[in-house]
């Protein structure tokens, strides 16, 4: 199904309006799979999940399923989890260690880089003119790269390098990925659950919706702190955005960490403050576990301080699988890692006292977008567009006050640019858009 809607006409960045059909239209969803998910760099795994040769995890890239494997040479390969013979799914496990991947249907066997290594009665194939085993491997991703422990891949050979794709966002990512010389790791395990929502609602929530917390999460804040989330000093809060990525943050250093409910977590960050300042500078040391949320375009969101990193996996226009991991510093004391492990269940997970209310909002906003009248409506995303400023130290487009729609609108502008471009070369340069404002 191809949408007859022009993606650019759905996003009015100048006046701050968004057409609600982006949350429900099946044609737009199909186009997203091609122009967003088969094109952008997508998060696959953390290096620490697959330390040894043959270690693998499976992941989605759009609606394609891939196996992500540690190769013999220490690198990482990712290839489609669908047999090159009759298309059967090859690996049914979510993670593990394998010497090879053997298809259940006819027994074709594939190596750790997806290459076809053999099959039953191979002499029949060898005697078949035109059959070339070397061309029958599993389809590999076009590009795969790591950034400070996080592995990303894209299906588009024309996509810019991961470094270019991230751009200045790397300055921000280093706050969570490089605040300690030992680097980071994922705690073992992944929390996965189904939310019947459009994937963009959680993405926009994480990219910049600090405004919802005081209302949506009042009950959780009351339970943890004995008081609501008070409107804080907003002049020291910011939105920063580039290439559709965004980070909404305060400079309170431990705001998110405090909401984990574990004193030992805030104590850890306080004890690290001067070391982090020496490593990343004073400004970034104030962001390391602060009241903040972020989204790396398109569907990789995280909460610094809560340490939860997640993928908004689209399964349909109104269907998503949420996958959530906990990222910690390798050098973090075991008790702090343990506290984070417990906090993962307690805060941002289906049973989390915060997230159980978010997922309700995302489902109900999705569901309520399908009516004839609601489909004709536009939603206002103009809050804070007038607060842009040149900040001497913060890279990207920066807006003061994180009760703002600025990052969300930048996310949707990037979405519209990608959705309306035939190929990467036609995607509007974000810098052009910046200059035009």
């Amino acid at each position, binding site marked *: 199904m191809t949408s007859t809607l022009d993606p650019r006409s759905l996003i009015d960045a100048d006046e701050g309006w968004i057409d609600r059909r982006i949350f429900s239209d099946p044609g737009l969803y199909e186009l997203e799979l091609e122009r967003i998910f088969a094109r952008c760099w997508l998060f696959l795994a953390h290096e620490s999940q697959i330390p040894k040769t043959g270690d693998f995890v499976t992941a989605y890239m759009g609606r394609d399923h891939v196996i992500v494997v540690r190769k013999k040479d220490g690198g990482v390969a990712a290839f489609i989890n669908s047999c090159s013979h009759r298309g059967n799914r090859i690996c049914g496990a*979510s993670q593990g260690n394998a010497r090879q991947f053997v298809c259940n249907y006819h027994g074709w066997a594939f190596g750790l880089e997806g290459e076809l290594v053999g099959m039953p009665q191979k002499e029949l194939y060898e005697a078949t003119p035109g059959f070339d085993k070397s061309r029958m491997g599993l389809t590999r991703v076009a590009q795969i790269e790591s950034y400070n422990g996080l592995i990303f891949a894209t299906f588009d050979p024309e996509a810019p390098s991961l470094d270019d794709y991230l751009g200045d966002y790397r300055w921000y990512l280093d706050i969570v990925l490089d605040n300690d010389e030992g680097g980071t790791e994922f705690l073992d*395990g992944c929390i996965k659950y189904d939310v019947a929502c459009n994937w963009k609602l959680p993405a926009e929530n994480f990219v910049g919706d600090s405004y919802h917390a005081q209302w949506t999460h009042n*009950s959780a804040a009351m339970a*943890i702190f004995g008081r609501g989330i008070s409107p804080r000093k907003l002049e020291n809060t910011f939105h920063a955005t580039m290439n559709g990525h965004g980070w909404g943050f305060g400079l309170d250093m431990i705001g998110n960490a405090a909401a984990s409910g574990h004193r030992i977590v805030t104590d850890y960050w306080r004890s690290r403050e001067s070391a982090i300042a020496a490593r990343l500078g004073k400004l970034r040391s104030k962001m390391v576990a602060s009241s903040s949320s972020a989204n790396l375009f398109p569907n990789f969101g995280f909460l610094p301080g809560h340490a939860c990193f997640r993928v908004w996996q689209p399964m349909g226009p109104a269907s998503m699988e949420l996958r959530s991991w906990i990222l910690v510093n390798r050098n973090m004391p075991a008790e702090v890692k343990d506290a984070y492990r417990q906090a993962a269940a*307690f805060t941002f997970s*289906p049973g989390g006292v915060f997230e*159980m209310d978010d997922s309700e909002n995302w*489902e109900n906003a999705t569901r309520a977008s399908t009516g004839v009248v609601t489909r004709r409506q536009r939603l206002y995303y103009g809050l804070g567009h007038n607060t842009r400023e040149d900040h001497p130290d913060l890279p990207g487009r920066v807006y003061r006050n994180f009760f703002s729609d600025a990052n969300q609108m930048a996310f949707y502008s990037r979405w519209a640019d990608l959705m309306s471009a035939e190929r990467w070369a036609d995607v509007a340069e974000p810098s052009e858009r910046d200059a035009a404002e």
Partner: protein
Amino acid sequence: MSGTSTSSGGRPASEPVDWTVVLEVQQFLFSEARLLDACRYQEWLALLTDDVHYWMPVIENTLGRGAPHRFSPDRLAFFDDNLKSLRRRVDKLTNRTAWTENPPTRQCHVISNVEVEPAERGDELTAHSVFVHNRGMGERDEFTLVGRREDVLRRTEEGLRLAKRLVIIDQHVLLARNLNVFF
């Protein structure tokens, strides 16, 4: 990565406990379930010991033979709570701004397959049970979750109290938008 169940692994318990104790444990589990069905969470908290551990691990989807339900205490969980965090959860759910509870969540716990065994400590019992949990929210949302529980119940002056609960479900990806309930 394997289950850390402490039970007799499917074999009938070597020293069967007295049937009156089995009935007593059943009554405890049934009335506990009735409190949860009614969302009477403060009264439910009173049935827990101070050192309670309430744990619902993520069940892994991995290759190989052996016990089918795979989980481990050093991996992420859906619940991993002590009394302090359970109290906070109850405070959250009973706050008037707990939006998931207004309109209220409707739930029913069907508790079955109760087996009782002596536990390591003389004043404790191990109770196995199976639950079917159904939840209705709003006009037409319904979520059903089926699983096993392995409980440690302690005899106290106030009667039986729950000291440990392990909840083992069959889903790897949880097919529900949230878990605003206890099992």
